[in-house]
């Protein structure tokens, strides 16, 4: 029976993998921007706390994980990658809680219906398919993709563990294992799972941090290069404004672009800016040369005028002395 369930899981997974339309897209969910979103989250918490049955708790957590995935997809559609990443993380936590609750239900001897196991297994397969489909999308930012692969990896671990748990149960039923051996095996399986999921989480976290620092560094480099190339003249003011505009644009689009596109855009824009600045510098040079020429010409004009003045005054004084001499001669006569 359990093998049947597992084959259903695999089968469903394969079927869903081939599907082009997202399963989650077709289902309705409350949008994270809705006025009633917080109320719905509080309702989830209360419902979970009021539920006594551990297998019911597992079903609820699985349901919440599916909700978070739908919501994160909605956030991605809106270009809000930060919220999408947070929701993905919550989806991962809920998937983990679901697995833990189911395990506790089994250990505590709670009767778990075949229907419950089947629906949970199907739901896991559906999530794997949905996450794989999300990863193929090109419009999703790199950091969100890291989150998605982390959740995917985690769900795969849970799925694998469910398979191993089923094998152990089968061995217990067939008397291949004693009850004590079964418990010990289950315990080591849980520990292994915890280690794997912690490792997975920390890997995802460090990748995200790396991405963040890379973004910061690129921004700082851009700012520094801008400062160096900025020339304090009126001609460069429009360029500075353009730089600021580009920076603003980059900041706005920061979350929506993958790092590759982001870097490409930065290099293109910086090339364009350098070209602009070079042109402006050439223009400045030409204008300065013209100004110098103009100044030289004016100087020459001035000099010429002064010379003319001097010459005129010399002529006048010569005329005067000649007249005086003439007068003196006339008197003598």
């Amino acid at each position, binding site marked *: 029976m359990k093998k049947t369930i597992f084959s259903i899981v695999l089968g469903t997974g394969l079927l869903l993998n081939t599907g082009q339309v997202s399963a989650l897209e077709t289902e309705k*969910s409350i949008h994270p921007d809705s006025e*009633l979103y*917080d*109320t719905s989250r509080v309702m989830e918490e209360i419902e979970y706390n*009021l*539920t006594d049955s551990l297998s019911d708790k597992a079903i609820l957590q699985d*349901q919440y994980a*599916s909700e978070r995935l739908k919501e994160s997809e909605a956030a991605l559609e809106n270009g809000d990658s930060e919220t999408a990443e947070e929701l993905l993380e919550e989806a991962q936590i809920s998937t983990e809680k679901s697995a833990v609750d189911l395990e506790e239900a089994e250990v505590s001897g709670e009767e778990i219906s075949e229907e419950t196991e089947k629906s949970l297994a199907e739901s896991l397969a559906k999530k794997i398919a949905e996450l794989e489909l999300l990863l193929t999308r090109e419009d999703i930012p790199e950091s969100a993709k890291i989150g998605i692969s982390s959740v995917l990896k985690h769900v795969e671990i849970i799925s694998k563990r469910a398979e191993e748990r089923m094998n152990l149960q089968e061995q217990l039923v067939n008397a291949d294992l004693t009850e004590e051996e079964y418990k010990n095996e289950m315990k080591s399986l849980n520990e292994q799972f915890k280690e794997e999921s912690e490792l997975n989480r920390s890997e995802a976290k460090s990748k995200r941090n790396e991405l963040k620092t890379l973004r910061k560094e690129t921004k700082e480099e851009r700012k520094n290069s801008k400062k160096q190339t900025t020339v304090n003249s009126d001609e460069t003011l429009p360029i500075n404004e353009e730089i600021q505009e580009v920076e603003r644009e980059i900041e706005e689009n920061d979350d929506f672009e993958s790092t590759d596109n982001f870097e490409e855009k930065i290099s293109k824009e910086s090339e364009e800016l350098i070209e602009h600045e070079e042109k402006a510098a050439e223009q400045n040079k030409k204008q300065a040369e013209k100004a110098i020429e103009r100044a030289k010409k004016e100087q020459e004009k001035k000099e010429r005028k002064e010379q003319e003045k001097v010459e005129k005054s010399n002529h006048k004084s010569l005329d005067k002395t000649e007249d005086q001499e003439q007068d003196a001669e006339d008197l003598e006569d």
Partner: protein
Amino acid sequence: MSFKKRLASFLLSIGMVAFAGCNDNTTTQQTVEVKPISIQEVDKPAPLYENEAINLLVTQSGDWQVDTEARSYNLEVTLHTQQLHAIISTVSTTQNFAGVKQELLSSVGDVEILSENDEQFSFQSKLKSPVRTDVFIKESKDANYHLVIVFMSPVSEYDRNQPEMKDLLNHIHFD
């Protein structure tokens, strides 16, 4: 005028002034004492939760206790008494009953609708130990928001909790 007559008129005038002064004091005291005491003030129970900014008042009733108060897009207060939990949320007046119902139902997964009318709907989860949810929407002509009141309890406890639900609903005042 004789001295006696002058003295008598003088004493009479002093007496008049003294009487007028005493009379004035008495009036002031009476004003203080006669300050009207509202019957409502005497009967009104202590507030369990009060938000003056939006004129929302929940008065003490039964064993209800306030758990949390959150303000993000809207106000959200959670309360409980034993196994019964309540959420009081504010929504804008642009939200109508149909909208609230649609949004809340889309967030709860697979449920069974139990009842619905113009201002209330109820549903329960399809689990081994189901939880029942009752949602009420209260509108006021004077307030610039609607109230959404959600009650949640295990189905097994529902009948016992019904009076507590009604009690709290009657103790919520807003305008």
